[in-house]
């Protein structure tokens, strides 16, 4: 029993550092996550249920925030899952007066739903094309980031949380975009020119240092070849403040 606890602690600590280990741990504890979700739903969750996805995400949050001072991990994770599901239930309850597009109309034998009667204005083929192009851009970006020794999970962990810090990083990115030689130096040396960015943008070098991995990702997006992503983060490229 004691060995199991120590092994679980070791797995949690590894999962905090390695995303693949985290995925493995979540896969290992899927029966537990399903069990907790079924306790809330009062039925077995299907793989399509959002509740199961949210329960898995809550389990992931529990892995990230767990420490032995918080008691047994599984109890802590169960509490996290239940809290998340309750939050989601309260959020979804606001839309209770609305009719679902999947609601059946007519007799059940017809199998018609409300969705079938609504004119679809979307263009699925165009959307599919854009999504595919975006996927390729992201794959290319991820590969290029690997050359800098940066992963997307690192970027997410290293992204600025406060608006003031985000604004400082955006200033530096704008300065780099307006000075092509800075971007060239960045691509050539594969190092973020922190000193030039800090002096040019008028921000603290320490602030940029703390978010170097985040800057790598955004500066790469600013280089040629990432049109869709550049269009997505237009606020930065226009030099506007984050809302």
């Amino acid at each position, binding site marked *: 029993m004691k060995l199991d606890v120590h092994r679980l602690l070791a797995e949690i600590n590894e999962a905090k550092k390695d*995303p693949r280990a*985290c*995925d493995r741990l*979540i*896969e290992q504890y899927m029966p537990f996550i399903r069990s907790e979700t079924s306790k809330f739903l009062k039925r077995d969750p299907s793989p*399509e249920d*959002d509740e199961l*996805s*949210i329960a*898995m*995400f809550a*389990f*992931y*949050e529990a892995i*990230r*925030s767990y420490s032995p001072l918080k008691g047994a991990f599984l109890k802590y994770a169960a509490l996290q899952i239940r809290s*998340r599901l309750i939050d*989601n239930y309260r959020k979804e309850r606001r839309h209770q007066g609305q009719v679902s597009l999947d609601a059946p109309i007519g007799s059940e034998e017809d199998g018609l739903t409300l969705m079938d009667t609504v004119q679809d204005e979307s263009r699925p083929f165009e959307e599919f094309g*854009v*999504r*595919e*192009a*975006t*996927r390729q*851009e*992201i*794959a290319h970006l*991820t590969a290029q980031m690997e050359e800098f020794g940066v992963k*997307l*999970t690192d*970027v*997410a962990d290293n*992204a*600025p*949380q406060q608006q003031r810090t*985000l604004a400082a990083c*955006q200033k530096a*990115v704008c300065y780099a975009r307006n000075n092509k030689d800075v971007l060239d130096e960045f691509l050539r040396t594969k190092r973020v020119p922190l000193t030039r960015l800090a002096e040019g943008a008028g921000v603290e070098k320490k602030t940029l240092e703390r978010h170097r991995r*985040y800057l790598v*990702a*955004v500066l790469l*997006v600013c280089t040629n070849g990432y049109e869709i*992503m550049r269009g*997505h*983060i*237009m*606020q*930065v490229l226009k030099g506007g403040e*984050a*809302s």
Partner: protein
Amino acid sequence: MKYMVMECHKAYAILMDEASQVVYAANLHYEVGQTVENPVLLQEPETAAPRISVTMKRCIAVAACAVLMLGGGALYYRGNYTPYSSVMVCADEANLCMEVSRSGKVLSVQPLNQDAALLLSDYTCSGKDPVTVTSELIERAVENGVVQKGDTVGVYYQKEKNKDPEQFEKTVEQSIASHELQADVHGELDQAPVPPAAPAEPPVAPAPPDGKEEPPAPPQPGKEEPAPPAPHDPKVEPPAPAEPPVKPETPAQDPAPVTPPEPGTETPPEPPLPPEAPAEEKPAPADTVPVPPAEAPVKLPDHPVQMPPV
């Protein structure tokens, strides 16, 4: 706010918003490259405050208890053992003053004259309220004959420091009236009669001008004192004073003439004159001891010199 799905994992997805912020979110069946709205974002655990050790907690608890006890004790002491107001009782010839605490208890009774001191002998006032003390002291005064029936007893107190002045006045008046005396209660201590002050000490008489020498001045730094004469040389006299003795200041009176000596008596020798300083003598160097010139010893008169009457 729109989010672009950058990476999908089993339990979570990595999204990038329009402000270039990269976040974790629940993977609600997302695909990479998809643009989503209203995702379930990761709730970052709040940075926990630094934990306080058990020892520190105990110290804080002990310190808090000590502060509470000291504060409570200070408040209790202030309310019960520090004088807050005064009540003065003037019963004919016995005046006394009571010091009263905030809680309305008499702390001490001070006699203001001799009769009051007699009244207060063997009397304890601790823990009693001013009305009780007043009543008991008036009873003593009646027994000792300090006040007679029908006399007026004045009570002066600080109205602004009394919680219920009307009740106090009423109770005091009833208490005094029970001894068949008349009560005169005032709410202002300033109206109390001032007790007679003790007789002032006579001024110190000036020293009589008896011609005695003033005490020698303390030696001043930097000046060398003359060395005492050598004991083996009897001829050497002590050095003459630099200045004649200061004559005591007396009222302006004309000095009476010296009575002439009667005929037939010996002519008294003249009083010794102060030896004159050598006129041409150069001042001695600072490092040498001045030695007075050798002279014949002055012969003192055999009888006292008759001083002129003042």
